[in-house]
């Protein structure tokens, strides 16, 4: 058991427990807070994988910006009283759990066999830490077009949100 093993199992257990809490808490606020725990644990896993910049972005963008948006909307809609019967009941829930377990078995099987895949087996896992310099260089050369398209997507989202909210105001007036 190396330190990496220990850290992996700690972060992995925390992220799994957080994820299960997300789908089992009744109140959406608790789900959102559990999701933040999961995101932090995943940032730890990214550090273990040598992706320090991704870990930082994970904390800043996901645990910071996106979750603040979630919490803001939950509080804005005041959903605490509405979420009492927000889960499937009876047979449908049983069916969903059975299908979910089947999917988990498939996913774990594929992941276990991926370790013996020839392409992955022949490659030597790189232990070097990826620097921000390298990421930036690649982002502005090989991935320049996707980068620009991403900016267009964000612009479209910005305009879309404004339009959605604005139309609502006019309907009320």
């Amino acid at each position, binding site marked *: 058991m190396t330190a990496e093993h220990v850290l992996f199992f700690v972060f992995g257990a925390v992220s799994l427990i957080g994820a299960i809490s997300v789908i089992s808490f009744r109140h959406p606020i608790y789900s959102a807070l559990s999701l933040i725990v999961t995101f932090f644990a995943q940032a730890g896993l990214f550090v273990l994988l040598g992706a320090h910049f991704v870990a930082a972005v994970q904390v800043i963008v996901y645990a910071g910006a*996106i979750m603040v948006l979630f919490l803001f909307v939950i509080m804005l809609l005041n*959903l605490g009283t509405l979420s009492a019967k927000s889960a499937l009941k009876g047979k449908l829930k049983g069916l969903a759990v059975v299908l979910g377990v089947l999917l988990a078995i498939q996913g774990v099987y594929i992941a276990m066999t991926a370790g013996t895949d020839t392409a992955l087996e022949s490659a030597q896992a790189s232990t070097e830490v990826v620097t921000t310099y390298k*990421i930036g260089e690649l982002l502005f050369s090989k991935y320049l077009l996707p980068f620009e398209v991403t900016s267009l997507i964000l612009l479209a989202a910005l305009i879309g949100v404004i339009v959605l909210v604005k139309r*609502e105001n006019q309907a009320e007036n």
Partner: protein
Amino acid sequence: MSLGVEYYLVLSALLFTIGVLGVLIRRNAIIIFMCIELMLNAANLAFVAINRSLGSSDPDGQLFVFFVMAVAAAEVAIGLAIIVSVFKHKKTINVDEVNSLKG
């Protein structure tokens, strides 16, 4: 000796499954959105793990994570705006009760 890629892939598969289960079981639109975020994060973990285990010197997998994050941010902003306007019309965000396209 570093940890094998299959550990991260198994964890990623489990997180993805929990996200799918959440979408199937929960009827609250906001929690369904959170579960979609869980699934995207599981995919991100797989991207970074595979990128490292392939031993390439370029961090291509990590760049895909950035694009996924940007799309997720846009998706969350639009989705929550839709949820807010649905809530204003229907006074509920239970996806079983929001079943008609017209008001």
